[in-house]
């Protein structure tokens, strides 16, 4: 099935810079949706603010482009009202874990059925390169011109601790794995997190002397390793890729529905 049917061509060209990883994520997401065969009317895409959040405008689903960090809260209202809809929330790293950190952990804790795709480019790209909670210690940004002294979150560990029932990580280099993960995440009943390392050559790579988009993508190959690999034991600095959590837990909308059924029984 062609993914072109999911695109709102009227709204192109998109705003992303040359070499940006977000287009790869968009492609993988649409491939995943195409292979699942979900009807366009059954998908709601909710996003916040930032480069990543603009994804929602370009796709022909029900799309809700909201406030910075608040996408999961809007999405909760949509999902609780119409649980049969598939809710997908593309997010940036600052969007998800700085301004939206509170909503993120609480959506995970409730285990409400939606798919959060955290497109981690380690920077606020849209505003020109300020550090985010995922930039990392020692890196440079326009608001950390000497070096960043903020330590970063580990999206996977945070999601696990907060109670997400599906947690995975990969990169824009591993696009086939990414597509499979997004498919799994959409099918998973519960709160799913897919972290995608996505290059921002313009505002992160350039300032941190990482080369262009190609060099940054190649670094995803050398800096990551499958979960539990021997390479990880030899080099603990490697970032693990794969599915970290996939478990059956009571889903929030189903739990609420069961309360309604219980109290209205016999009345």
């Amino acid at each position, binding site marked *: 099935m062609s993914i072109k049917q999911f695109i*709102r061509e*009227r*709204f192109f060209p998109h705003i992303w810079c040359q070499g940006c990883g977000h287009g790869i994520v968009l492609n993988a997401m649409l491939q995943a949706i195409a292979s699942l065969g979900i009807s*366009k*009317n*059954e998908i*709601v895409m*909710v996003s916040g603010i930032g480069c990543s959040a603009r994804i*929602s*405008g370009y796709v*022909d*689903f*029900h*799309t*809700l*482009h*909201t*406030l910075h960090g*608040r996408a999961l*809260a*809007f*999405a*909760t*209202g*949509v*999902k*609780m*009202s*119409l649980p*049969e*809809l598939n809710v997908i929330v593309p997010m940036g790293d600052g969007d998800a874990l700085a301004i939206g950190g*509170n*909503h993120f952990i*609480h959506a995970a804790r409730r285990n409400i059925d939606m798919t959060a795709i955290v497109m981690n480019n380690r920077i606020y790209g849209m505003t020109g390169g300020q550090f985010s909670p995922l930039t990392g210690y020692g890196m440079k940004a326009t608001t950390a011109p000497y070096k960043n002294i903020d330590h970063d979150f580990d999206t996977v560990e945070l999601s696990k601790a907060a109670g997400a029932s599906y947690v995975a990580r990969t990169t824009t280099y591993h696009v086939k794995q990414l597509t499979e993960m997004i498919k799994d995440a959409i099918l998973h009943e519960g709160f799913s997190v897919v972290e995608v390392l996505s290059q921002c050559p313009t505002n992160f790579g350039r300032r941190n002397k990482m080369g262009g988009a190609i060099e940054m993508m190649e670094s995803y190959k050398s800096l990551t390793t499958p979960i539990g690999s021997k390479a990880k034991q030899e080099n603990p600095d490697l970032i693990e890729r794969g599915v970290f959590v996939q478990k059956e837990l009571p889903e929030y909308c189903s739990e*609420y529905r069961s*309360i*309604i059924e219980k*109290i*209205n029984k016999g*009345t």
Partner: protein
Amino acid sequence: MTQNIKFIQGNEVCVEASLYAGLDFYAGYPITPSTEIAEHLAKKLPQLNGTFIQMEDEIASICAVIGASLTGHKAMTATSGPGFSLMQEGLGYAIMAEIPCVIVDVQRGGPSTGLPTNVSQGDVFQAQWGTHGDHAIIAMTASNHQDLFEITVDAFNLAETYRTPVILLMDEVIGHMRERVFIPKSGELPLVERLKTSFKSGEDYHPYLPREDGRLPMSDFGSIHRYNVTGLAHDMWGFPSNNPAIVSGLMHHLIDKINNNVHEISRYKEYYMDDASIVLISYGCSARSARHVVENRRKRGEKLGMIELQTLWPFPVHLIRNRCADARYIVVVEQNMGQLVHLVKMNAPRPDKVFLCNRIDGVFISPTDIRNVLRVIQGRGV
């Protein structure tokens, strides 16, 4: 004929009325003095197959309400001053994206955490100007439980009619006071249901292209029309735009749809206004004491009249201009440092004859407080 009479708190009246109006989604965060609204809805909504969710904060609450409204549900949240401050971001979004919803603010003393259990009417200006950017807003209030029931239903009706958030400004006294209320029968009060688009699947539906009358027929998320909703300035498809002509058209639409309909939106009551030489203007719980003074003075033959405002925003300029033209003095009774009094002064024929009678110490303003101000104005000392 049996009547459904209840003796309940104002917060519970708000709950009864919102369910009467068709509420089926509530998201909120506990805060005094509004919490009873959440507690009652947590019990009642699941019984009615509706949705109640307690969110992680007030920001999330209003966002969830907006999301639910987009799926076609009548949605509400309730809070008090500190939570209302947090909701300003979402309120602006609902204005910009034209999402019908109701936001209840049971006012308490402020600023900041202020006086959690004491009364105030300090959020009148915040209701209009709390969120950034130019915009129009509808804010309603009531002074007794029977009125509160009708005004709450009105708030939902206006939200649907104008596709906009409506603020219901209650206060601690009305919220917590118990009073008798007659619950209207089904059908007794008119209800406005959402205007849905008649466009069929495959037709080019423009979610943000107003009809000639300014109204925007909606299509529910999850149904046949897929479109974009954004807080950015947007075109008729809901897609972001910074084209000056489009932005200008959008801004005028958002403001005109409310400000050009002030007469339809204004709710008020007036007492003894035909020959009044001293006019008390009040609203919410303060209007109870003002009314008491007016009734007592009338019995003594003094020509006092009163206007009780129930729509605070858009401010009913016409009402002040037309009904107060012959007033010798106007006294605005409110529980803040003077908020609505500024609007009255701007629009009264003689601004120098407009006075403020207020309390800001968390104590409910009494008829004696008002009588003392009247004595001073009339040159009779205290």
